[in-house]
């Protein structure tokens, strides 16, 4: 009833194994403006088949899975020829079980001229988490890439100043990775600790 499969263990807490299934490639026709868009991109970019690993259409949204080393090329074509003037940032996702492609960067693009949206996805391995920076293409990606570096440890090559942005500069680790330890540790911030309740400051 509630989506339990296999053993029917519905205890809910921790007992259920969850595996992440990635959506398969989509076949043409993609529907809507996606076919036009894919045609335009293939025409404008001869290296299309070599750079785009997969095209996924899911829930009315188009995702292009781009090879890491071709990202800037594809981005420039999308910006200059297909008029995707804006990149709405980058969002990291961590799939620790997807060996060799653990870290994913997702770029939602917006074309105001044509009123279209598209999404680029790039995956890299945890051991070599380098993705070319898109700050040269869309300057507004600067802080977004810093945030994704801060939270996931993805290194954006060519970024003008890739430093932490939300966490303190001397923070260790990248908190939004799935393997980042949570809970059960003493709360500590820069050497300060939480005193025992009877030693806390209180009004007299």
């Amino acid at each position: 009833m509630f989506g339990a499969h296999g053993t029917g263990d519905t205890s809910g807490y921790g007992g259920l194994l969850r595996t992440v299934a990635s959506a398969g490639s989509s076949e043409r026709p993609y529907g809507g403006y996606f076919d036009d868009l894919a045609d335009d991109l293939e025409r404008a970019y001869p290296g299309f088949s070599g750079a785009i690993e997969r095209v996924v259409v899911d829930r009315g949204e188009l995702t292009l899975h781009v090879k890491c080393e071709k990202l800037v090329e594809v981005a420039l074509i999308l910006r200059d020829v297909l008029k995707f003037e804006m990149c709405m940032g980058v969002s990291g996702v961590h799939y620790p079980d997807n060996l060799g492609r653990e870290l994913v960067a997702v770029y939602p693009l917006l074309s105001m001229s044509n009123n279209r949206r598209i999404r680029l996805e790039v995956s890299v391995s945890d051991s070599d988490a380098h993705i070319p920076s898109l700050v040269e293409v869309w300057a507004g990606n600067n802080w977004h890439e810093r945030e994704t570096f801060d939270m996931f440890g993805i290194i954006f090559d060519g970024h003008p100043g890739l430093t932490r942005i939300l966490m303190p500069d001397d923070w260790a680790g990248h908190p939004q990775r799935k393997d980042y330890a949570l809970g059960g540790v003493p709360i500590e911030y820069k050497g300060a600790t939480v005193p025992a309740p009877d030693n806390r400051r209180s009004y007299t």
Partner: protein
Amino acid sequence: MSTVDPYAPSRETTEGTVFSVTGGDWDSLVQEIGATKEERVVVNMGPQHPSTHGVLRLVLELEGETVTEVRCGVGYLHTGIEKNMEYRSWTQGTTFVTRMDYLGPIFNETAYCLAIEKLLGITHDVPERASVIRVMMMELNRISSHMVALGTGALELGAITPMFFAFREREIVLDLFEMISGLRMNMAYIRPGGVQQDLPTGAIPKIRDAVAQMRKNFKDNSTLLVGNAIWLKRTQGIGYLDLAGATTLGITGPVLRSTGLPWDLRKTQPYCGYENYDFDVITADTCDVYGRFLIRMNELEQSLRIIEQALDKLEKLEGAPVMVLDKKIAWPAQLALGSDGLGNSLNHIRQIMGTSMESLIHHFKLVTEGFHVPAGQVYQGIESARGELGAHVVSDGGTKPYRMHFREPSFNNLQSTAAMSEGGMIADIIAAVASIDPVMGGVDR
């Protein structure tokens, strides 16, 4: 200087002399800085500064009063909301997202819930009455948010009276929020599949009265500021950012519309049925702080127009459901205020406790474990008061988000501070930052 200045003690570092200023006698500080013979001064403004619009730290490089470089330090309000949500059910997530941009809670909730509904494939199953209520709440929220932008923006430039007027209007909106959802801020009122509960009885006439009152009150602030010579001098030609700059920086919202481009997601990529409302997209072509101010002032009237149309629709939809009919998603209760001051639904309790064991199990599972959302990812953008608020949601098929990311307009737009202020005077940074209207809770999440 040999004597220690109690207000501005100094110490030597490898970067030069560092002065800590805590207020008081500025003359002695100026003397001391003059004695260093440095042309270039680096000033830390904030993070606790009354005119930086929240805990924002601005690192300014100055030559005289001219700003040569601006860097923003953010992250002081980082609360790990995105990470926290990975450990809460989809419904519980609304109580987190509502606390991000605390001046636009309804926008956060709506973006989040629309994204979940897209993942669930129930976008078209959300009842019309729920969508209309969402639109009305968003526009009320736009008014209260713009009121803070205008009021604090004016205050930061030294005009105190507009803030009193602006907060008076904001009170009207917050009172309505309290009447409708029980809370003035951080309501968690918009839920996946609809809204938490229907409007209370007598709400529509009260909102109509409030709209009439606000329409009358808005004139106070426009009389004070529009065309005011001092206000014009502080805002016209200040914080310049043209369309090319805004585009490459990903700027949306009033700042983008101040370059003359009528880009408003409510018109261009409608959601919640915005295509059924009659309203105008306000633009300006001055690319400056004054243009953004005028846009916000005029958007207030457009929001009132939308609210009035929403109220007309609500009157026709009286008694219609406000939550999807699928009982595997919808939380079951229409809450009523009990004598203990807590919301409860006696009918629902009677049913699950007294009549049906299955209902009890169902209720227990739905509330503790939550509903499953099919695996996949979506991005949903909406036009918040500050620009495009985007929710990127990844589900692995479980009862909790696998990854939540918010593309916050405040976070993105704050990047334009340098482009707007470098080369200008130090006082104009305040005007420029105020015109971006960043909310640090949203920037840092």
